[in-house]
């Protein structure tokens, strides 16, 4: 019963995450940007724009300019999350890819960094009056969700180890449609339930900042308004008086 419920939950969560994100990306892509609004100084070539976006994604360049504390906590959380996610590939691959084996030791520490970064961000949300003012309940809940995922994961690693072999065969079973029994360890169930919740809310929440960055006209536009005419379709229709 438990196995069926979680199997269904993960199929649903994956479908919502992938389908929802694809729909959002399609929406963003089809909405025109009728005016050139890059925040200048901006790159004058497409390569330059790719570099600008890469710096935003990898280094959080603008956030670094804005506030060193938010940058420190935010960047540490995201970087650690990435390592943790990559480390989790070991539960979905058989045999485990070699580079996933190599990052294993870092992945374990990254779990702590991730939670520390989140707690830093949460502390600012509670203690800095400006940030407390702009916080809605969902902003706290999102942090609670992520902290819950991180802490339950760490508990399984350091406090109450779960039957990882059985867990892995459950997920491999999901991938191959050859379902296997999920261990009924409560911490594991909390961990997996929270992860599924995160996947489900992703396309409907502020987590859309991830695809949003790539579609942000102030960041992804080339500064070449005097060299190349920029005209959206709806603006072209207004231009009946000229070619």
């Amino acid at each position, binding site marked *: 019963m438990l196995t069926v419920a979680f199997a269904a939950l993960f199929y649903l969560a994956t479908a919502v995450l992938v389908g929802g994100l694809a729909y*959002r990306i399609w929406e*963003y892509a089809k*909405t*025109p*940007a*009728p*005016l*050139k*609004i890059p*925040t*200048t*100084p*901006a*790159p*004058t070539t497409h390569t330059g724009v790719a570099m600008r976006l890469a710096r*935003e994604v990898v280094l*959080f360049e*603008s*956030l670094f*300019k*804005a*506030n060193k504390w*938010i940058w420190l906590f*935010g960047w540490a959380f995201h970087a650690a999350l990435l390592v943790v996610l990559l480390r989790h590939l070991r539960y979905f691959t058989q045999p485990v890819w070699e580079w996933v084996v190599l990052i294993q030791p870092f992945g374990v520490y990254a779990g702590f960094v991730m939670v520390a970064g989140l707690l830093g*961000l949460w502390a600012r*949300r509670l203690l*800095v*009056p*400006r*940030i407390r*003012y*702009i*916080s*809605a*309940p*969902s*902003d706290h809940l999102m942090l609670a969700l992520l902290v819950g995922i991180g802490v339950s994961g760490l508990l399984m690693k350091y406090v109450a180890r779960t039957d990882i072999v059985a867990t892995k065969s459950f997920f491999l079973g999901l991938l191959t449609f050859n379902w296997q029994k999920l261990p009924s360890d409560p911490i594991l169930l909390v961990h997996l339930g929270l992860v599924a919740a995160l996947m489900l809310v992703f396309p*409907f*929440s*502020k987590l*859309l*900042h991830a695809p*949003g*960055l790539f*579609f*942000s*006209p*102030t*960041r992804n536009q080339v*500064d070449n*308004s*005097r060299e190349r*005419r*920029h*005209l959206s379709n*709806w*603006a072209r229709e*207004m231009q009946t008086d*000229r*070619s």
Partner: protein
Amino acid sequence: MAEVKDPDDRENELPDPLAIPDLAPGCMAMSKPYVAAPEMQKRLGFPGELVENWQDRAIEKMAELRGKYRSFRVFLDSCVKCGACTDKCHYFLGTGDPKNMPVARQDLLRQVYRRHFTLAGKYLPWLVGARDLTEQVLDDWYSYFHQCSQCRRCSVYCPYGIDTAEISMAGREIMDSIGKGQKYSNEIIGKVRTIGNNLGLPKKALKATLEDLEEEVLEETGVPVRFPLDEQGAEIMLVAPSADYFAEPHIAGLIGYAKVFHQAGTSWTISSHALEAANFGMFIGSYENMREIALRIRQAAQDLGVKRIVFGECGHAWRAAYSFLDTLAGPFDFLDQRYPIPQHICEFTYDLMQAGKLNFDKSKNDHVRLTFHDSCNIARGSRLGDKPGGQFDIPRAILKACCNHFYDMAPDTIKESTLCCGGGGGLLTDELIEIRKAGAQPRMRALQQVASDHGVTHMAAMCAICKAQFSKVLPMYGFDREAVVSVHQMVSNAIILNPGAQKLAGADAKD
């Protein structure tokens, strides 16, 4: 002004320009511009008064904007409330009103957007801070979307590049569409569309002013520098903000442009049809109005048969020209393609300097110890020259070529981090003087620092709004109102004129 002090001796008496104030909720809620009169609204194609079903109409408009502007949709979806922008707005720094924090200003619109266009906002509004569009919310929109000068400082620091200017433009567009427009901006747009300039200057008055200027410059320099109006076949059409024809220190800049054109030996003209560089259609987020105004410039250039368009010193006007003119009124295939379309007067002057065609007597500006205020819309919404950042380097190169004593203000208050003058984005109106004064505070404090450290006496600006705003607020911060100068005023003071360099309109063709 202040005497030169060693920076180390400066006891900490001067406040930090970027000091973060304590929150003072609601302290600027009462700051609102006058509402546009019905006939003013109708002239621009908006309802005269607040329409009966304004809530529904506003939501419909929001849906329309969501389909037309990617910025609107992406910016409303992407904010994570990280707080990076919260201390970046000069109006927040000057007032402490939390609704002047960029994210909170956006949230005024985002909370309604979430209520109507997101799943969570529809079913769990309390969870995500979604709200219905009530009268109270509309009231906040009217107050706080008119406390944003659309300077884009927040967009520099946002990790997703969210630009509050886009949101305040959308907010104003929605309010216009339901009949709650702002008197100052909409009256001006009406004047441009009927008379051709923001000030409603008639051609006769303009002609008299230009003739006076010719006489004045001749008397002062002995050189016949021309100020041509509506001259067919001129090489260049100058499009300057209309304030350049009557206000101080703007007019001193206009004299500078004329002297540079004289030295260039190029024929030029002002157009009475497109006497206005400013495009207030941008302030109210109206593509249609922005386009109408831009098309006047195209029309004037075609009617006069000019080959180049050069813009005068104006901040948002240059953004509208540099970034939008080709989109709104192009293609400009009838102009000389060897030059940038449009070109900025500073680019024109700088190119002549590089070509060795301008000579300056810097000592003429020795009474001035100068700093430079980067105008927000030039700094963050456009470019000068062919390299990113030219908008910072070119004006400084010009000023340093004309002036022996130049000192920049604190690095976190200039260039891409520059502070708005406090009067941009349609706020340069008397009833908003309180927010204008508060918004100028960070810039004024940065000026106080450089005055104290280096004995700076003057601040050059290259925007009609900056110049008008500073003339008004400088005295409120202990400076002389004439401490703000035009960039081309410094050029005008120092340029060495060569009699007879100027060509007449049409002369180029006969060469």
